[in-house]
């Protein structure tokens, strides 16, 4: 009798828990789904400069529909196009800044033999994004926009053309262009700066201490945030940035900047980004040669 009871109990226990756990699973899935929806929305509202990705995704769909009607432009034609007009270029990926999986949008630095195009939050599948390496040829269709001086393609779609036609830009030495009106003609291009001296930044969050770099532009951040540092040439000071989406805190360049000292003389490479003036996104910092 006792054995029978025990056996019956075991069977019932297993059966009860099975029935219950399957329902718990459903509940959990529903919660995750709900959280995912919210998470998606939050990402869209997160970074100031990251305009709503969903919105761009939406516009990207419209852009996609009109894609067939837009002629592929040369760099010259692209630059001559009106702001807010639809543009289409065939260009080559130089670097991938970020990918928003929820919205399936990417931000890319691209360039061809004539000039560079910053592609902001354009629609592309994860599968296609994974195919992108420096040099990959892509067709980008979207709208020409200007945000704080940065000319970019927004609300776009990226089509991977691939193939053997590849192009990786050599860094243009822009050292002597610093402080000139000509510099902006090379906006977004892969450039280098040579023999610049690191000068002090003022850390407002630490009693206005003079430091070689800052987390965020004024020291209000912590490790993992963008790094800002000042360099000097001919008595003029310029602020360069390690954009954390492009080069996070695990990268060599991030660590190299964390190791800078005031007075170091360095060579740098990066993309000639613009924010209310030149604001290069640096990807390489080395001690100056010679």
């Amino acid at each position, binding site marked *: *009798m*006792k054995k029978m*009871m*025990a056996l*019956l*109990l075991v069977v*019932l*226990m297993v*059966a*009860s*828990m099975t*029935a*219950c*756990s399957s*329902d*718990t699973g459903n509940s*959990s899935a529903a*919660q995750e789904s*709900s*959280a995912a*929806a*919210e*998470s998606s*929305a*939050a*990402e*869209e*509202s*997160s*970074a*100031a400069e990251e*305009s*709503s990705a*969903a*919105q761009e*995704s*939406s*516009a990207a769909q419209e852009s996609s529909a009109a894609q067939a009607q837009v002629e592929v432009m040369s760099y010259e034609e692209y630059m001559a196009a009106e702001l*807010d007009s*639809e543009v289409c270029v065939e260009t080559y990926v130089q670097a991938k800044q970020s990918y928003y999986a929820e919205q399936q949008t990417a931000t890319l630095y691209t360039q061809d033999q004539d000039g560079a195009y910053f592609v902001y939050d354009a629609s592309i599948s994860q599968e296609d994004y994974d195919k992108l390496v420096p040099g990959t040829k892509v067709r980008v269709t979207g*709208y020409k*926009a*200007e945000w*704080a001086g940065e000319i970019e393609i927004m*609300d776009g779609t990226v089509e991977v053309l691939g193939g053997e036609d590849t192009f990786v830009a050599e860094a243009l030495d822009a050292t002597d262009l610093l402080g000139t009106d000509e510099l902006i003609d090379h906006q977004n291009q892969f450039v280098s700066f040579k023999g610049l001296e690191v000068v002090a930044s003022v*850390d*407002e*969050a*630490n009693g206005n201490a003079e430091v070689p770099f800052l987390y*965020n*532009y*004024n*020291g*209000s*951040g*912590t490790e993992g*945030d963008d790094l800002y540092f000042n360099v000097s040439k001919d008595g003029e000071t310029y602020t360069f940035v390690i954009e954390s989406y492009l080069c996070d805190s695990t990268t060599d360049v991030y660590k190299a900047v964390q190791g800078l000292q005031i007075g170091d003389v360095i060579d740098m490479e990066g993309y000639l980004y613009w*924010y*209310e*003036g030149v604001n290069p996104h640096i990807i390489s910092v080395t001690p100056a040669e010679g």
Partner: protein
Amino acid sequence: MRKVIFCMILSLVLGLCGCHGSTKSLTAFTPPEEFDTSSTYEITFWAKNDTNATQTTIYKKAIEDFQNLYPNITVTLKLYTDYGAIYNDVITNISTGTTPNVCITYPDHIATYMTGDYTVVPLDTLLTDEAYGLGGSKVLFDSPSLTEMIPQFLEECRIGGGYYAVPFMRSTEACYINKTYVEALGYTLPETLSWDFIWEVSEAAMAKDAEGNFLVNGQSVMIPFIYKSTDNMMIQMLRQLDAGYSGEAGEIEIFNDTTKDLLYTIAEHAGTRAFSTFKISSYPANFLNAGQCIFAIDSTAGATWMGTNAPLSDIAEEALVEFETVVMAIPQFDEENPQMISQGPSICIFNKDDPQEVLASWLFTQYLLTNEVQIAYSQTEGYVPVTAKAQDSDTYQDYLSRAGEDDELYYDVKIEASRLLLDHLGDTFVTPVFNGSTSLRNAAGELIESVTKSMRRGETVDDAYMESLFDEVTALYHLDQTEGLASGKDDLGPLPQTSVILLSALAVVWALMIAYALWQRFTTKKKKSS
């Protein structure tokens, strides 16, 4: 054998208790009677600053001062510069059980955090605890009492019948105006701004000379009206018109005729380029300070960026233009009954296995409400302290009275922005909080961004466009899937029928077992007696 059966039954009961309705091991927080000062506690504080270095300094000092009072508590600060990033990280960490202890947040976000059982600590009991509650007898610092909290701000942290956060700072939106240009265009600022006034002046500012430069500023760039947060723009316009946005229980009401009418008006002015947004053009402050914008609407917490003499600026010094800055409430439809949003950071506490750790978190949270922290932080931007204790203090009143003494601590635009909220506390509102309210907020902004972009791109904005836009936005933000208010104690509905049957069978077996045991006992006694 009895032991075996007992263990099986125990495991069965525990298993059933554990499996229904929860995948987490956390249990409801019960406040300890006494804070254990003999153990050490490490708590994490995820905070948001407005890329304002002084705010970072204040957080660090608050932590240092608190740790001096409670040497057994170590607080680790992690800084963010936007609420969305905090939200995303919290969501990620809920699933791994690695949430922070204390977190700056929006009530909207808490509603989603609460989808996990007991994830967020309800504060009702803690707030009123005699020993460790606000102003409690065993709190080692001068914390505000419950009655010294501004009731309206505290009420904004009530979610689903309980308090799940405390307010940290409050702000609203303000219209920062280039008065010099308004008057140059032949207008006089009214006592209360109206939407009609802003649209009219903005269109007047679009006049150009023969070279294509704008007459009002002589420059090639002029966007007379720029709105930073278009979600707030839509929400406040709808509220002012008493039109639908959302119901208290999370009903989506935004897709209505009033919304359409508002979008047509916005589209009209986007089409002439008299209106634009932050997402499309950049920070309103940059344009305002360069003399390229007349009406810049942004948070009062962005006041230190506004005006010719603003202490913070992103534009080159040579681009700055001299003008008189005036701070006014956002434009209204009904000037007699102004309405504006109440916003700003709140603080929530995440539950942990050790109630003492939660109590340590609560003590730190409470420390952030002390006058030292409240007044210092509110002075960094156009914020307002959330306690009457701080607002009424001599220190704070002195600060307010010294507007314009310098362009740093006493920057007049910043203090005017704070005054704006203090003068309009009764005119502020918040939107209902529910699981999905964040998505709805984003959708509200998306509607304005979309029509603005479409007009700039020469697209047709008509009824067909509106219908399509509403459908797209509904789908993009999953507004047809919102669940309404979340709670840590969701009603999970009745048990599944299979479980009911099996549990009933268990009850029958129990009854049989008890009957069997009694029968055996009876027969044993009988044998002994015989």
